[in-house]
C-alpha cells in the first residue's frame, strides 16, 4: 500500500503537523500484530480532523480495483457519528456505513458478531469514527462505561483498529478510571490505544501557516505569500485562530482575485470577515488594528 505523504495532495493541506499525523494514522493501519492498537486524535473544531480523516479513508480505498463479480473491498470505513442513545446505535451506524441496512439486531453482542463478519468480507483494515464525542455522554458514568466496554469488545472481537476523531471532550473516554468516583473499575480501553494525538491550530509564525494560506489561496490564483508578508499572515491568524476550516471560510467569503493590490486584498478580507465572522473587532480594519498594534501583539 503506497500513499502520498504531506503536501502531495490536491485536496487538503498535509504539511506541517499534518504530515506527522498522517504517518501515525498509517502506522495504525500497517500494524502487524494480532491485536492492533487504536488511535485517538482530538483537537478543537476546525483544525482539520474531519478533513484528514476523510481524506485518509479515501486514499486507502482508492488503491482497490472494483470487481463487480465479488464482494467490494473497503480497507477503510469512515463513519461520521451522530448523537447516540445507546452503544448499539454506534455499532449500527458502522454497519449502515458498510452498506447493510436491514434486519439489524438490538443487542451489542449480536451487532458485533455481525460487524465482525462484514469486516472480514470487505477486508476492512481500519474504522475511522469521526465526531466520536457525540457518542459520549456529558458526564462520566454508567453510559460512558458502556460505550467504553462496547469499543473494547469491538476491538477484541474484530481485531480491526479504530481511529477516533473528536473534540477534546473525547479524551475522557481514555480517562474513565480517573474520573469516576462512585465506581472503581479497572479501565480497559486505554491500554488498547496508542498515545492520543492532539491537532493544534497553526502557530502564528510557523512556515506551515504560510504554506496553508498559500494552499488555499492558490485555488483562486492568488500569488503566494512569503515570510515578508508577515502582517497579512498575522492578521489572518488573528481572524481564524490558526484553524484551517476558518481560514477556508474567510478566503471563500472574501472576493479575492489575482489582480488585486495588497490594499484591495485587505479590503476584500475585511468585507469577508465582516460577512462571515461575528466578531466586532475586524483584524483587517486598520482602524481597529493598526500596523503598530499588530507588531506589538505579535511581538515581531
Amino acid at each position, binding site marked *: 500500500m503506497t500513499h502520498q505523504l504531506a503536501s502531495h495532495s490536491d485536496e487538503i493541506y498535509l504539511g506541517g503537523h499534518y504530515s506527522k499525523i498522517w504517518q501515525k494514522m498509517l502506522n495504525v493501519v500497517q500494524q502487524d500484530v494480532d491485536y492492533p492498537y487504536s488511535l485517538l486524535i482530538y483537537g478543537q473544531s476546525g483544525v482539520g480532523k474531519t478533513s484528514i480523516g476523510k481524506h485518509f479513508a479515501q486514499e486507502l480505498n482508492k488503491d482497490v480495483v472494483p470487481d463487480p*463479480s465479488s*464482494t*467490494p473491498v473497503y480497507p477503510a470505513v469512515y463513519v461520521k457519528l451522530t448523537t447516540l442513545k445507546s452503544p448499539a446505535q454506534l455499532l449500527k451506524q458502522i*454497519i449502515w456505513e*458498510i*452498506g*447493510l*441496512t*436491514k*434486519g*439489524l*439486531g438490538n443487542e451489542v453482542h*449480536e451487532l458485533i*458478531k*455481525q*460487524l*465482525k*463478519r*462484514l469486516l472480514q*468480507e*470487505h477486508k476492512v483494515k481500519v474504522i475511522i469514527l469521526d465526531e466520536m464525542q457525540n457518542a459520549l455522554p456529558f458526564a462520566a458514568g454508567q453510559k460512558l462505561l458502556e460505550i467504553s466496554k462496547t469499543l473494547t469488545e469491538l476491538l477484541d472481537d474484530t481485531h480491526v483498529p479504530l481511529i477516533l476523531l473528536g473534540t477534546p471532550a473525547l479524551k475522557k473516554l481514555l480517562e474513565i478510571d480517573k474520573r469516576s468516583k462512585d465506581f472503581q473499575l479497572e479501565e480497559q480501553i486505554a491500554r488498547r490505544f496508542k498515545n492520543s494525538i492532539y491537532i493544534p491550530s497553526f502557530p502564528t509564525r510557523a512556515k506551515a501557516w504560510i504554506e496553508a494560506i498559500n494552499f488555499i489561496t492558490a485555488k483562486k490564483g492568488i500569488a503566494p505569500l512569503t515570510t515578508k508578508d508577515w502582517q497579512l499572515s498575522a492578521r489572518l491568524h488573528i481572524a481564524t485562530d490558526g484553524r484551517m476550516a476558518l481560514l477556508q471560510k474567510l478566503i471563500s467569503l472574501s472576493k479575492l482575485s489575482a489582480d488585486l493590490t495588497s490594499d484591495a486584498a485587505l479590503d476584500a478580507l475585511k468585507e469577508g470577515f465582516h460577512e462571515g465572522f461575528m466578531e466586532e473587532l475586524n483584524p483587517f480594519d486598520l482602524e481597529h488594528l493598526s500596523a503598530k498594534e499588530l507588531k506589538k501583539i505579535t511581538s515581531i
Partner: protein
Amino acid sequence: MSYFSVQVVPKSGESLPGFLLRLAKRNGYFELDRLMTKHQLNHIYRGTGALYDKTVQELGISEQLKIRDFGSIKSNGFLKNCRVCPTCVKASLPILENWQSTTAYHCDLHHTVLVETCQACHKNLTWDLPVLDAKCSNQYCSAPLPEIASKLRALSKEAFEDCYTAFTWANMAVDIGNMNRSEQLAFGYEVLTCDKTFLPLIKEYLTQQAQYSGYPDTMRFWQAYSCLSGLNQDWALRSALLTAIQKLSTEHFAITSGTLTPLYVPHDFKKHYLEGIPLDETYFTLRKSYISTKKVEFDTVSKEHFSFSNLISALCRFAIPKDSSTVSLRHWPSVIAPYRVSATDVILACCQGDIDFYFDKNDQLLDSLHISEIHMRKFVFSHLDKFENGHVDAQAASLICQLSTEQIYAAKREGLLKTYRVNNFTRRSFRVRDVLKLARLLDNQLPLPLNSAA
C-alpha cells in the same frame, strides 16, 4: 435497491432457501429471523404472486433472483423441512434443490445420506443458518449433523421412486410412525426387496376377504393395486402383490358371483387417481372444490375426471343392465351435490345394492356409470335420515321439499322448520329431521319416493 453490503450470486442447482441462507450468512446474520420471517420465506418460495413481489422488494433481492429462475422449481409452493448433505455444506457447497425431493436419498457427489433430522434432539432441520455449518438448526442443540455413507448408492432415480411408492403402500397398510424422507426411502427399499418382515404383512392384509364394512381391509386391496401400478421395475414385492391380488380376486369374486362386489373405494384412493390424471385448467378448480368440500360443480365435470377404472372393470363383470330411464355419470354429481353426499358413498351404495346402476360396456370411457335417478334420491334420503341431527342449507331443503327457498323461509317463519347456527360465522341451516317432516306433509306433492322411516 439492495439492503445488503455483500451481494451473493445463486449457484447452479442451488435451492432458493439455501441461497437466502447463504446471503444472510455472508452479511453477518446468525439467525434467518433477523432477515425475514418464516412467512416471508414461504412467500418467496412460492415464486409468484403479490406477496412474493412485495417480499422480494422489501428485501431488495430482485436482481439476484433474476439471475437464476427459482420459479420453475415449485411444487405445491409449500416449503418443507431442510435436507442437506453435511459433507457438502462443510465444504461450503450450496444446498441443492434436488436434495429436497421426496425421492432423493443421498448426495450425488459424496454419496452421503441426506440429513433431515437431528440425531441428538430428533427435531427436523429448519431453514436456518446453523445448517450451513452442518449443525442442527435447533438453537438449544446445535449438534453436528452425521455424515453417513449411503448403502443404496447403486439405485437409480426410478428405483428410488419405487422405494417411495412401496413405503406409501406399507404406511397405509400398517402405521409405521414418523419417518423422515431418507428413512422412508430406506424402508421402502426393504419392502420392495420383500424380506421376511413384509411377506407376512402382505399375506395378512391382502388375503382377507373384502368386506365393505371392514373398510380398512378393502382399502388396502386398492392401495396394493395402486402400489403395483406405480412401480417402474420388477421387484420381489411386485410378484408377491400380484399373487395376492389374484388370489383375492379369484376367491372373493368367485364367492360373490351374481351379486355386486361389495368393494369400497376410499376417498384417498380416489384422490390418488385424480392426481394421476393429466391436468388442465378446469381440473384444478374441480379437484380443489371436491377435496375440500366433497362437492362438485356439475358444469365443470367431464368424463375424464372420475376414473375408477379398476373398480369399474371389476363391477362390470356383475353389472345388471337396467332400463333406459337412467342418468349418466355426467349428471349424478349434480343430483347428489346439494345433499353433501360424496361420490364415494354413491359407489358404496352401488356395491350395497341400495342403488341400481347400469354400466354401458360400449362406452369407451370408463366413467359412463349410469345410475337410476329415482334410486339415487332414495339413497340420498336414507343417507340423510341417518343423520338425525344433521343440517342442510336452504337450497338442499328446497330440493328435498320441492319448494322454493322463499317458501322454505316462510315455513320457517310459520314454525314448521327450525333453523340452527353453530356459531356466529356459519350460515343458518335447517335440521334434516324437520325438513323430512315437512316433506312428509307435502307428500302428495312430491314425485320422489320417501324413506318409510322418514
